[in-house]
């Protein structure tokens, strides 16, 4: 496995990998999201209790799932970066953070929009809502810490440490909040809790869950590639790549002008 992983410690290889993967992820995201959303929004049967407003589940649940998934993968990247001193993994932490924060924000907003007609309130201090809000704060902490350092290497390592500390806390926060909630409110009002969902509703949901995963992956690839490029802007491989591209552009320009002349 090391032999397979080792080349990606080099910035250039990871950069190329990112751009190789990007189109696959993007197209998969477009296909799954379009089909899943159309299926879910127009063809899936409406809920016997919630009517059509349940359909926001096709955006709420995927973003909520991947907001947590992104945090975990961010912390794993941080751990790899700190333990094995792999700089690309540290860069991945900051590549993931804003995307994860956006997903968390979307999950909170879509939850609020869903909660208003169902529960009669935009916000209730429910366990899941609260831990999702805290997750947003954790993301914002990582982003703020990264941005406040001048030296980006120190910034990346500091935010990696914070991400690791945070991920140890995520389960504690989750269970403490759940416990706190049950202590104070008695019966839970969470209707999402393990919904026994019919297959016609479930399939578009699964499609959208995978679709949002591809969106996450595509955005992270793009951001990571950009981070690497910004970091290595003065390295020979970037210069070589840039000059190659400008040469190609000039060549095609020359060809075009030749064709014009002919």
């Amino acid at each position: 496995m090391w032999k397979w992983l080792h080349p990606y410690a080099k910035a250039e290889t990871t950069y190329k990998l990112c751009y190789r993967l990007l189109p696959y992820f993007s197209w998969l995201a477009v296909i799954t999201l379009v089909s899943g959303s159309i299926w879910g929004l127009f063809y899936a049967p409406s809920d016997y209790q919630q009517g059509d407003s349940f359909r926001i589940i096709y955006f709420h649940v995927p973003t909520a799932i991947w907001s947590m998934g992104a945090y975990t993968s961010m912390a794993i990247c941080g751990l790899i970066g700190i333990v094995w001193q792999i700089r690309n993994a540290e860069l991945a932490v900051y590549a993931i953070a804003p995307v994860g924060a956006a997903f968390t924000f979307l999950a909170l907003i879509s939850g609020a929009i869903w909660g208003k007609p169902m529960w009669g309130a935009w916000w209730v201090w429910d366990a899941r809502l609260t831990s999702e809000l805290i997750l947003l704060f954790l993301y914002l902490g990582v982003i703020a810490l990264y941005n406040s350092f001048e030296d980006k290497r120190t910034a990346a390592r500091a935010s990696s440490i914070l991400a690791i500390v945070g991920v140890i806390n995520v389960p504690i926060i989750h269970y403490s909040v759940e416990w706190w909630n049950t202590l104070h409110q008695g019966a839970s009002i969470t209707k999402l809790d393990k919904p026994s969902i019919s297959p016609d509703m479930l399939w578009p949901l699964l499609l959208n869950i995978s679709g949002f995963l591809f969106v996450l992956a595509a955005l992270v690839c793009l951001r990571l590639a950009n981070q690497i490029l910004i970091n290595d802007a003065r390295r020979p491989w970037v210069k070589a790549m840039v000059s190659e591209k400008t040469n190609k552009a000039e060549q095609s320009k020359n060809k075009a002008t030749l064709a014009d002349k002919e």
Partner: protein
Amino acid sequence: MNNLSTSKPLSYWSAFKSIFIREIKLAWQKPTQLVQPVVFFLIVVTLFPLGISPAPKTLQMIGPGVIWIAAILAIMLVVERLFRQDYQEGTIEAWLLSTVPMSLLVGAKLLAAWFISCSVLVLITPVLALLMNIETHVIPALMLSLLVGTPILLFVGAIGNALTVGLNQGGVLLSLLVLPLYIPVLIFATSLIEAATLNMSYTGQMSILISMLLVSCFFAPVAIAAALKNTVN
């Protein structure tokens, strides 16, 4: 120090002890820094009856939570300048160069910091409990929760301070990093006090708090050492 080549390597225990004593001595020389968090703690608690209601029933209900939140804010003040002076003077660089593991030295520093700034908070809690009209049988539970909880807050907050010590803008960023991590401690501590108010056993909450203390004792010095190394380099 005269002949380094023949001197014995520093034993872990003597290094721990010397840092602990150094911290206590330093704190003794600057008593204002000792008093500030305590006064802050008092003032924050005083604001609540003025802002919400002085009715004894209301105070009794919100009292423990208010005292805990005030303690958290006071500890944020302590944590904010925990490593700042050491960083500016170069003490941390000296720690990095020593043969003793950094996390051990950090542990000594944290222990001393708890005795210097947080133990006083625990000790004056009964006075605040009287101000907030908290029943007397709840006060031991409140003090116990603070006794176990404040070191957790200090250790976790110290991670945040170690991450931001190289930056000139501490406060707001530090609270963004640290306060979300304080939430579980707050939840378990207040539920412990609630159980005590209802005359129920609170060993369950207590054992969770103690286990959180042990986990933070073990991991925080390692994380702080890593963060400080990162900042100094």
